[in-house]
């Protein structure tokens, strides 16, 4: 692993561990191996969403060319894939692939693990049905929001350990 990538991930790891979001259990990062190429991320489902109470686990793969290169390319991808299944218009319900612009062409070298995880959390709170990853979920999100909400709630309960709340209405 390139020196700069390893150095930066080490620093970022420390930064995340010390951040107040970790203290509030909103995000977390764990090492998978010693080389800092693979990490395990966790984000808490944001409140007032069907994901509330859920704990979503991510697989983060850091490319050698981090933090410079485009996440788009196979060599240079910062690969963040949901391990926990989730019902969300911008996240594939099958593969867990995430549609988020900063993980693609809007990446900037100053972004960190922390900002990426927080952006993902924000994505959970504000879905973009016009730029969907999962067309079925997006269609449901647009057309029958209450069923979408209940499905998302159910998935959170089953896969992410959230409490089962029956009579909550998604605004």
């Amino acid at each position, binding site marked *: 692993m390139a020196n*700069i990538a390893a*150095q*930066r991930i080490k*620093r*970022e790891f420390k930064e995340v561990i010390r951040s107040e979001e970790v203290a509030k259990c909103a995000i977390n990062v764990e090492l998978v191996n010693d080389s800092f190429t693979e990490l395990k991320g966790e984000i808490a489902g944001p409140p007032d969403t069907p994901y509330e109470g859920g704990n979503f686990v991510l697989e983060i793969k850091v490319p050698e060319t981090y*933090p*410079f*290169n*485009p996440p*788009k*390319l196979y060599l*240079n991808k910062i690969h963040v894939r949901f391990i926990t299944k989730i019902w969300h218009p911008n996240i594939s319900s099958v593969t867990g692939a995430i549609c988020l612009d900063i993980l693609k*062409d*809007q*990446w*900037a*070298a*100053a*972004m960190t693990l922390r900002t990426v995880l927080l952006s993902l959390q924000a994505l959970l709170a504000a879905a973009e049905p016009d730029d969907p990853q999962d067309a079925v979920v997006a269609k449901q999100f647009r057309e029958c929001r209450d069923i979408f909400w209940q499905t998302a709630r159910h998935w959170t309960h089953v896969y992410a350990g959230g409490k089962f709340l029956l009579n909550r209405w998604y605004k």
Partner: protein
Amino acid sequence: MAEGGPGRFRNYRENRFSLRSRESSRPCKFYIQGNCSYGENCRFRHTDTNHRANQEDHPGFQAEQNEARIESKPNALRESKPKESTGESETDLKFASGACSISSVEDWVNAPEFFPSGMDSPKTYAEAVSSLSKSSKEVENEASNASYPQTDGAYGPFCVLCDICNEMPLDPNNEEERRKHVSECIKRHERDMELSFAIQRSKDKACGICFEVIMEKANGEQKFGILPNCNHSFCLSCIRKWRQAKHFDNKIIRACPECRVSSDFVCPSIYWVESKEDKEKLIVDYKEALSAKDCKYFLKGRGKCPFGNKCFYKHAYPDGTKADVGPPVRQRRQNADGEVAVFRQVSFLEKQSKEIMNFVIKFLSFLKLNSETGRKMNRLLQVKFNFQLDIEILKSKEKQLYKQ
């Protein structure tokens, strides 16, 4: 003996001053102000008038004077001294008045304690401090500036050190030289100050890309890359690498990685520059330095610079005349996604690229592939070799091939 320590010092002082007796022809500035701490041992003249004082030649007079001072000095000053020593000092005094005439060097032990003449008239603390706060050198300077007639050589009885650099001896009479040196000194001092401020500013700035403190990086990498349009710090190597990143829109890589404010170029700097004026100055200096160097694309007229007249480097022919190259050459091209991307022509690969083109066209026709594949290949070629095929040529070749 308790008196051993200070006594030795006083002996030395007395010796020293007796050697410099000729300086006693100058008036003592402190005496004039009324608080010379050397008292009778001062190497300067203690008198308000211009004629030479001769009190120190009469030890008897000195002793009398001291006796008078001891009686009149304030109690507060005596408190610091142990009580039993008061009697001693009186006997010492008697001894001193007799011994002084024999040897002024050896009687220092018995010399009465000195109290400056100024103590007679009570002074406020502020007055005392204000007069003492002037450095002795300054006072010496003033004394030498006083209307004292020069009798010795060109540099007077002693040279005055410049009170800024503390090194350069100056002739107190040569106003012009003094002024010149002082202004130089001030300029140098300002430069030093600016430098230390710059170091202070820069020393804990971290790069927004590698997150390392830039001044603590390895040698040769301690350079800042200053973006003209925003105030985020990066090391030069990191920001340059980011701006060379492929597969991002120009808009993304030309923007600051932190705030996404676009900047057209990066200015290298040894220190961190934050204020607008400093930044402008740095950029002007940078452009000036670059405009003295020959452009590696223009090659004194042999090449073609893709940056045209926007290039910071020198575009001049071998005879020195400046070349007026038009605006930057840009090639518009549609990429595979149908977006319009702007690419710069890369001149140094032009020759090779023609050969490669011919080869690729032959290869494609061999495989019976169309220009669409060529388009896809372009992306690969651009990554690997930093050059693109001309799609138009490909298409025309394709048409020719189909006709055949």
